[in-house]
């Protein structure tokens, strides 16, 4: 089905080629304050052009107004709540060479794939911290899916985790089916960069080289039955305004074509990782620009979840709780097997983590994060789904 749609150009990869992202990016750099004021007066961005104007440097004097809009819109749709989840890294084995990623095949890090038993032990440990929502992450390797490994981890995890999402290498709809049937509800696939020349330069070898195949990942997943879809770009690889506009275009496409899915956008900025990749500093998104981006997304996409990971510093994360973010990870470890070496009372690692994908910036425990959320006047929501919706007893 997706293949036919791709031929017709209906899948996002086909649509994206037709979009004037370059021109919109140019406009986002140059838009005058009056352009953005017109959008702010309406209280909503209705088009990508409206959205691009909100990304303009000229809007700086109105950042507080944008934030107030963003907060009000977010509270109406999501309430004074923040959903919490934990990632679990099953493996750092990967068949791709990607210049910026700690798991890249050519990096000399210890390669680990944890057993189903170890995964379940770690998941139970996360459940004891309060988590009821889990994101399963792994490098891209055919062995995770071919032998039912991931499905088994999911089935076991459901005993303590009512909601499960995955972030794995892109697959075909047919390969997603057993994962959905096992009880997995969410699928996340970041494009990393939407700028194709940079994408092809950074992804040196491996199946990840296929830009358009990756672009249609969540649509293939939707056909398999995933109910929550997550997209995003890794900010720092190319002009962030180009990326943000592309993500917005992608989201608008998915809202129309995958209308039953709850959509989330993640906002990861580059972090230091093994391999020592140095991004072009001119592509870096500042803290103020991240806030501007969050508020602009909110004005265009009021009902889309916005996800913030532990890549960001504690001070910034505290501030963003009230500005438009709806979902956060907490106490995360990006090394496969890493949670096995976490002290449960303090939630701190008891040994070095050489196999991590990147180093996190917010090392506070889940309990501490929940306390901060509460202090900000928000409720930390741990459980927001029940597997009985989709699975018969």
């Amino acid at each position: 089905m997706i293949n036919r749609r791709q031929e017709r150009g209906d899948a996002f990869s086909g649509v994206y080629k037709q979009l004037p992202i370059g021109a919109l990016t140019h406009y986002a750099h140059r838009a005058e304050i009056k352009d953005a004021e017109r959008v702010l007066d309406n209280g909503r961005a209705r088009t990508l052009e409206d959205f691009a104007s909100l990304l303009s440097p000229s809007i700086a004097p109105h950042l507080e107004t944008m934030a107030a809009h963003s907060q009000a819109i977010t509270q109406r749709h999501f309430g004074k709540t923040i959903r919490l989840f934990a990632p679990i890294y099953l493996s750092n084995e990967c068949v791709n060479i990607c210049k910026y990623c700690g798991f890249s095949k050519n990096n000399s890090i210890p390669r680990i794939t944890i057993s189903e038993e170890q995964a379940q032990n770690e998941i139970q440990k996360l459940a004891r911290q309060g988590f009821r929502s889990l994101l399963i992450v792994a490098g891209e390797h055919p062995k995770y899916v071919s032998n039912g490994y991931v499905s088994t981890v999911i089935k076991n995890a459901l005993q303590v985790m009512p909601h499960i999402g995955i972030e794995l290498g892109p697959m075909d709809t047919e390969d997603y089916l057993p994962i959905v049937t096992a009880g997995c509800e969410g699928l996340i696939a970041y494009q990393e960069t939407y700028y194709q020349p940079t994408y092809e330069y950074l992804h040196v070898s491996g199946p990840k080289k296929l830009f358009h195949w990756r672009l249609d990942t969540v649509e293939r997943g939707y056909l398999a039955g995933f109910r929550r879809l997550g997209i995003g770009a890794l900010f720092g690889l190319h002009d962030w305004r180009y990326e943000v506009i592309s993500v917005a275009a992608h989201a608008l496409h998915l809202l129309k074509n995958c209308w039953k899915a709850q959509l989330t956008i993640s906002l990861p900025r580059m972090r230091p990782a093994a391999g020592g990749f140095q991004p072009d500093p001119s592509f870096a998104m500042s803290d103020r620009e991240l806030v501007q981006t969050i508020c602009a997304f909110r004005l265009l996409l009021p009902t889309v979840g916005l996800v913030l990971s532990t890549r960001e510093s504690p001070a910034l994360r505290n501030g963003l709780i009230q500005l438009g973010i709806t979902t956060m990870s907490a106490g995360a470890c990006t090394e496969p097997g890493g949670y096995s070496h976490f002290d449960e009372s303090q939630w701190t690692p008891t040994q070095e983590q050489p196999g991590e994908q990147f180093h996190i910036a917010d090392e506070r425990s889940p309990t501490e994060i929940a306390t901060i959320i509460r202090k900000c006047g928000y409720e930390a929501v741990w459980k927001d789904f029940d597997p009985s919706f989709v699975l018969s007893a």
Partner: protein
Amino acid sequence: MIETLHTQSLTIGNRTFASRLLLGTGKFASNEVMRSAVIASGTGLVTVALKRVSLKGDKDPFADILDFLQIENCLILPNTAGAFNAEEAVRIARLAVKAGLPQWVKLEIHPDPNYLLPDPIETLKAAEILVKEGFTVLPYINADPVLAMRLQDVGCAAVMPLGSPIGSNRGLDTRAMIEIIIEQARVPVIVDAGIGVPSHAAAALEMGASAVLVNTAIAIARDPVITARAFAWAVQAGRVAFESGSTRGATERNHSLKASPTSPLTAFLNA
């Protein structure tokens, strides 16, 4: 404190409620605030999303919303939000009963997660099954008079048409359709969703709605407790006005039915 005005009580299924204000329990800044608002509102019926509750029958400190709703004379109305279709809604409603919750259900089936608009076909299908199994079923629906009648025909205890999209605080955008639903209803009509300020709630009751369900407007208010009270008063005011007949003739429809031209068309009969 304003005195409580006497109004007729509301009967849904086999239960009678003094208050015509129902509360939703999502979106609050904390469970403590939610509980205080529920108590302040004087409601006798609160709805809770089953997806937020532990359905295994065990105590879960990380999904403990029900612990905050042990309130005297306040019935918990489990809702099926999160269900995409009839099968899912029926399954989770059954599980809720097994977990010890009342055999009441606010049927919410919204496959569109963005505007949370209800699926009429799946809602009717699920209602039919759950009514047969003995549930007291309160379906959340778009303000569709024919669907409201169909749901009454299969035995629903009330119908819950939306005033406007959930969380929009836009008030009674669907007023014309709700008026028809009220006119035709054989069961209580509870306006659910979109009620943004107390005057919206008062207007719904003035129109003859049996009750309103409010959530977002109270949950995200600066002071949810005082806002809950304001809604309670508005609901009473609207109901008193309705019962006393002081709103009769005020609606556009009544005007069109009752207005008399200055030169009556039937004047010739008196000649």
